[in-house]
């Protein structure tokens, strides 16, 4: 049973997605069904994490018992689809399933009054399938297929409120970016396949030289995944998509974005990890992109009036921290002394920031969704004095805002501090930019807090009350996670993050499928 977990992680939500449309005329049955399926997947992800951390990498071969597979002619190359789940894959799978579960729970009340909910939940589950496939697979073409599944499901969800023209506009923007990026990924997969005749990432990484075609393939892959993860200069789709998507989907859509970031890391560290000396310049590019992303994102956020749009620009800016952290690690990859001194910690900071950011940004976008739910507007200038009417939402917002600004007892501080410390040792300018960005982040959230929650009550909203229970519960779970991750960062770092970092760094173990080969 346990050895089939990687396949079941895909099969269960896929089954759920196909069953969901059948529950069309059954009231809230699709919502309950989605919660059951995402809950089961979350449980399996926990088992998977436990298994991977205890036993090391899991290799799952579709259509054969073991990866010792040969063609009938005795030609020994991996030709089947192989799932390779190492600690970072399991880490991303846990984030994805956790956020899908929270999103389904929040959606139960949040989108209750919309129509076509069975399709909504089917797409939510398909999006989860796409993310899980991307992070678990060990096959380049499989990565492309799941990238497309996540892209199609994600953009259909962005355009879910199709009675609003804006939703379709955001949806087609996201879909165009996603389609071009994944077609270019497919093109570079073709480039690699043409040279080495294989699609397995582990096998390719043993073969890869660093000739011109490889460099072109790396450039295209890097650009495409950077495009999909919302890095500057191709960040324009992020604010539109995050603003228009229903708030219950925001957590999952965030993880879908970071699945592309994971693919970027996988390409840099595993696929091209053998040529680490050539990759250090890629690491520097990643750092510079990270700094630009965080700074441009936060300055764009400061001028926004739409509360969800403001938070979406912060999502761009926080992606910069992850790029910076992991970029520092990549830049010193071929220098063992520096890698041990600060590179490994920098990567830990970047990867820890992924889960922290997913938690607090989902929390913040959910509070924005709650504000929209009760007021019907997202314009900050029209809100005011909501703190007394919505105490739980206010608490959740304060926790999220404190976490994103990097204030000590919350989780944002733990990962940001690691990034400040380590990026300072590579280049002080990076650390200065990172800190300035944090201060600006705090400034813009003070603005949101002052205009939405404090101030004189607006007459129009005298009758509003707290949002329904399932939304409150979802927000409070995330707020509690923010606090827990902030109070005990060492536990999360030791149990989840450092194994994930080491999985990226230990190329030999990935290439030999955890020592099976």
């Amino acid at each position, binding site marked *: 049973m346990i050895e089939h977990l990687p396949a079941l992680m895909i099969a269960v939500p896929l089954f759920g997605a196909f069953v969901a449309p059948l529950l069309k005329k059954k009231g809230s049955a699709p919502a309950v069904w989605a919660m059951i399926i995402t809950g089961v997947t979350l449980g399996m992800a926990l088992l998977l994490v436990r298994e991977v951390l205890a036993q090391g990498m899991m290799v799952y071969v579709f259509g054969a018992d073991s990866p010792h597979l040969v063609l009938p002619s005795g030609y020994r190359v991996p*030709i089947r689809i192989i799932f390779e789940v190492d600690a970072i894959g399991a880490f991303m799978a846990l984030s994805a399933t956790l956020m899908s579960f929270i999103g389904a729970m929040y959606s139960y009340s949040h989108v209750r009054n919309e129509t076509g909910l069975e399709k909504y939940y089917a797409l939510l589950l398909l999006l989860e399938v796409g993310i899980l496939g991307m992070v678990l697979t060990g096959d380049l073409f499989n990565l492309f297929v799941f990238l*497309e599944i996540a892209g199609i499901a994600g953009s*259909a969800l962005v355009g879910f409120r199709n009675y609003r*023209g804006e939703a379709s506009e*955001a949806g087609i923007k996201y*879909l*165009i970016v996603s389609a071009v990026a994944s077609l270019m990924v497919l*093109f570079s997969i*073709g480039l690699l396949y043409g040279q080495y005749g294989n699609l397995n990432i582990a096998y390719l990484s043993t073969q890869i030289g660093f000739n011109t075609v490889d460099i072109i393939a790396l450039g295209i892959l890097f650009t495409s995944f950077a495009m999909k993860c919302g890095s500057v200069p191709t960040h324009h789709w992020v604010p539109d998509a995050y603003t228009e998507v229903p708030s219950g989907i925001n957590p999952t859509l965030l993880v879908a974005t970071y699945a592309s970031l994971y693919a970027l890391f996988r390409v840099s560290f595993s696929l091209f990890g053998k040529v680490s000396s050539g990759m250090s310049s890629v690491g520097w590019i990643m750092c510079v992109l990270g700094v630009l992303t965080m700074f441009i994102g936060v300055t764009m956020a400061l001028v926004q009036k*739409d509360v969800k749009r403001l938070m979406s620009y912060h999502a761009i800016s926080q992606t910069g921290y992850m790029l910076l952290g992991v970029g520092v690690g990549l830049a010193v990859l071929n220098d063992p002394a520096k890698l041990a001194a600060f590179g490994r910690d920098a990567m830990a900071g970047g990867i820890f920031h992924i889960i922290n950011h997913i938690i607090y940004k989902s929390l913040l976008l959910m509070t924005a969704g709650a504000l929209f739910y009760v007021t019907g507007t997202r314009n900050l200038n029209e809100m005011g004095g909501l703190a007394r009417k919505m105490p739980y939402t206010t608490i959740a917002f304060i926790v999220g805002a404190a976490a994103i600004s990097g204030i000590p007892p919350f989780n944002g501080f733990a990962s940001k501090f690691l990034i400040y410390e380590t990026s300072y040792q590579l280049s002080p300018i990076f650390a200065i930019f990172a800190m300035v960005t944090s201060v600006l982040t705090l400034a813009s959230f003070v603005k949101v807090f002052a205009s939405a929650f404090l101030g004189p009550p607006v007459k129009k909203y005298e009758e509003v009350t707290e949002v329904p229970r399932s939304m409150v519960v979802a927000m409070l779970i995330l707020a509690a996670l923010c606090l827990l991750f902030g109070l005990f960062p060492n536990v999360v770092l030791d149990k989840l993050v450092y194994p994930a970092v080491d999985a990226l760094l230990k190329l030999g173990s990935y290439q030999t499928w955890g020592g099976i080969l």
Partner: protein
Amino acid sequence: MNNVILVNLPFIVVALLLAVGFYTIGFKRNLIKVVIGIEILEGAVNLFLIALGYVKGAYAPIYTMAPKEAVNNMVLPTPQALTLTSIVIGVAVSALMLAFAVNIYEHYGTLDVTKIRRLKG
């Protein structure tokens, strides 16, 4: 000389199609034309994969009834399978994009991408 061009003809066509596709996506103002641009791009990538699948002098990957001399001299059927998958995915993507375009036309009354700009800032 002539032979070099003939052998590399598919790849030249791929490069041309890629250029046309990116031009269409980047410079055309009609949303339907942008969708067509993505389709052209997809055609280029699919043609590229198919062109990779052919190895000169090798046999087609049919395992039953293959002649004796084909053993160890067959091309892998992978690129064809990849192309089929990619075509199917492409159909889904273009259907969804056109659905969005129809919906946008309903709400905005235009398909001009420079006028579909309610989301900005």
